[in-house]
């Protein structure tokens, strides 16, 4: 798709907006609809759009496959790590009350952090699946 000028210009306009919207859904999930799952999918859609318009190779230069594998594991690690931290702080597994002095603040913090873990894993896995499927037809 080297000569699709309109697509390329539109993609450059839209991709930052999509990423911004994903971050909004991610961090506003406790007040409005949304959360880690939806934000992760929207975030990965920005990169898939980039790959569709500018080609798979340039997309893989933006976000290499090795980084995606680390990110996919990192999200699960963050989530389970929060659970382990609460164990060390004397609570039950994933009992966020003990994360802060104030139980409500602890809950809020815990929810934000695990939603971040969910978002990272979901977006990385969606991109892994897309790149693997799309890359297979290339060779």
């Amino acid at each position, binding site marked *: 798709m080297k000569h699709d000028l309109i697509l390329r210009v539109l993609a450059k306009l839209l991709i930052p907006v999509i990423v911004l919207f994903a971050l909004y*859904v991610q961090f506003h*999930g*406790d*007040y*409005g*609809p*949304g*959360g880690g*799952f*939806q934000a992760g*999918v*929207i975030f*990965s*859609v920005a990169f*898939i759009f980039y790959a569709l318009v500018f080609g798979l190779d340039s997309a893989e230069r933006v976000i290499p*496959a090795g980084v995606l*594998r680390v990110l*996919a*594991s990192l*999200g*699960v690690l963050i*989530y*389970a790590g929060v*659970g382990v931290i609460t164990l060390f702080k004397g609570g039950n*597994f*994933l009992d*966020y009350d003990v994360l802060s002095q104030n*139980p*409500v*603040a602890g*809950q*809020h913090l*815990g*929810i934000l952090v*695990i*939603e971040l*873990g*969910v978002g990272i*894993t*979901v977006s*990385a*896995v*969606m991109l*892994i*699946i*897309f790149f*693997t*499927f*799309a*890359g*297979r*037809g290339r*060779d």
Partner: protein
Amino acid sequence: MIDILIDVTLLAFLAITAIAILRIHNLFAVIMLFGIFSLLSAGVFVVLDAADVAFTEASVGAGISTVLMLGTLALTRGHHEKPPAHRPWLPLVVVLVTGAALVYGTVDIPGFGDPATPAQQHVAPRYLEQGQAETGVPNIVTAVLASYRGYDTLGEVTVIFTAGIGVLLLLGRRRRDKASKDEQP
């Protein structure tokens, strides 16, 4: 009144899309119709006040899975369904009987939003009354998903992670397998 109108319109479009998916044999068009079907389902969820579910359906069902199915279609050769090899009478009977049983089952389902149903009386009142005070999160869906049901969500994230690993193990070896590259179709 306007609610009923929106419900009937959305469900009619869902039915039309489903019939179109059955009738059309061009797989590219079928995938596009699947996306439209998901988007209409998301509309139905919005009407049912399930904004979070609608969000997921719109982004995953209409967005990502359409792209993945298109990617799969690009890898396969035929873009048309094969004509059916046998007559559809047995599947038709099975579908009709199952559908009739399901419609019969809906007679016993409690009314939409009925506060007296068992599902609304177990833990839901506690979440609705205490949720914001206990977690400080106004969106009850997020509070339930991330805090009260944190184990389940950890399990879901692990499932997604496992799916990614599975795809990588099955399909993601193209770079290292230089030798077997020539054998691939």
